[in-house]
């Protein structure tokens, strides 16, 4: 097995991995020298931390608080069940691919147990923790504003989820309490690193799964024949960051959607539909038809369904999963009333106002 995917989350054991010693034994445990630096550096790069440890939850969490590092760990699994099971739950909670998770533990038995269930999870011996910093899987090509805020965004999401579960009443009622603002804008130079990252990290709500280089996106951004849109979602808990991207090629008769993706963190917020509505309206107002490239992957069935339910039909299908869709633009969903939508036109108007 070769492991190549950029790491999104590292799952740590505690005893003799994060700290020296065993918590259930009488001697005091000591944080491993150099460990905090590694955790902070990976956190800065946007790599998430979690825990799979066999311990009593309260005692272990208290100990992490004492060391002042508990805030770095998302969805900790501290109990006596198998660590492979813990990793499955962490994966589900974070909603990331299993091949982007790695596991670090001092005990060969635990590493083997995890590997036997999750062949795509690379495991590391705890003695090697310092080498992670240099490991290419832990070196994202770009470190963007969104990478640095990633843990915070997941923490905000945990609060959201808790509030949502506690909310009694219809779903639209809860959504209305979020004060969501969705901004669609034409991508600018400072958005491009994040745009590249989005094409690399987004799997489920991704129409083509194609990745783009910085230079490619830059040329589309400046091209008269193309529109490159980037979207940001904000609500009362904070910003989800830049979470959506679409590339349109403008031809004589068509708006041709070459790529569209939306981070799965905003899956339940209808914002993909908002971006689609905007693009459909634009194409229609210019009297053009809308076409869209699509590539079926084993991960993006939801996006296929989204296109079909947005009234796209297959114009071409090569039987290898490469599809060209067409939309006659007779049915366009309105924007949801619980989201305040800011369009590129609004931004242009605002900036002209400011100049005046």
């Amino acid at each position: 097995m070769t492991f190549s995917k950029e790491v999104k989350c590292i799952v740590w054991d505690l005893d003799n991995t994060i700290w020296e010693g065993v918590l259930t034994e009488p001697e005091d445990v000591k944080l491993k020298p150099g460990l905090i630096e590694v955790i902070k550096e990976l956190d800065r790069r946007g790599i998430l931390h979690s825990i799979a440890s066999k311990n009593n939850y309260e005692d272990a969490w208290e100990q992490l608080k004492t060391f002042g590092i508990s805030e770095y760990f998302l969805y900790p699994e501290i109990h006596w069940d198998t660590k492979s099971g813990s990793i499955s739950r962490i994966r589900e909670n974070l909603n990331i691919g299993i091949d982007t998770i790695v596991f670090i533990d001092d005990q060969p038995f635990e590493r083997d147990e995890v590997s036997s269930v999750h062949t795509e999870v690379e495991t590391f011996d705890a003695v090697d923790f310092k080498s992670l910093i240099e490991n290419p899987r832990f070196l994202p090509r770009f470190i963007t504003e969104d990478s640095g805020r990633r843990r915070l965004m997941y923490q905000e999401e945990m609060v959201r989820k808790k509030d949502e579960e506690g909310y009694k009443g219809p779903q639209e009622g809860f959504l209305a309490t979020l004060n969501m603002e969705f901004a669609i804008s034409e991508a600018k130079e400072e958005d491009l690193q994040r745009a590249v990252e989005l094409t690399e990290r987004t799997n489920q709500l991704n129409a083509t799964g194609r990745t783009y280089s910085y230079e490619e996106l830059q040329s589309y951004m400046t091209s008269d024949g193309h529109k490159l849109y980037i979207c940001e979602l904000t609500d009362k808990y904070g910003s989800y960051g830049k979470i959506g991207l679409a590339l349109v090629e403008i031809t004589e008769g068509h708006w041709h959607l070459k790529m569209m993706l939306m981070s799965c963190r905003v899956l339940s917020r209808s914002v993909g539909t908002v971006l689609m509505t905007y693009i459909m309206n634009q194409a229609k107002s210019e009297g053009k038809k809308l076409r869209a490239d699509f590539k079926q992957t084993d991960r993006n069935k939801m996006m296929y369904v989204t296109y079909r339910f947005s009234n796209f039909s297959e114009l071409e299908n090569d039987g290898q999963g490469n599809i060209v869709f067409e939309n006659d633009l007779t049915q366009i969903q309105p924007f949801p009333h619980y989201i305040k939508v800011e369009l590129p036109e609004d931004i242009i108007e605002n900036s002209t106002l400011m100049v005046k």
Partner: protein
Amino acid sequence: MNQKEQVRQFIESNLIVFEDEADLKDDDNIFQLGYVNSLFAMKLLNYIESEFNVKIETDEMDIKNFSSVNNIIALLDRKLGVTE
């Protein structure tokens, strides 16, 4: 509960509607009544496939087949070979 009631209940509890007091009738166009977002579309397909033990083919994922409770039932009838 019959199929129709099951489908209607599923839609009522999962669709984000435009009007708080919307009352879903079997002929109402659900694409006009609420927001058919990715999550809802996927949930609806999964629900129909698992609840009625059918496989929805890609050429059946047409908006017409899912636009109302009646249309969904008609699709199911065709798939399950029900004759009136």
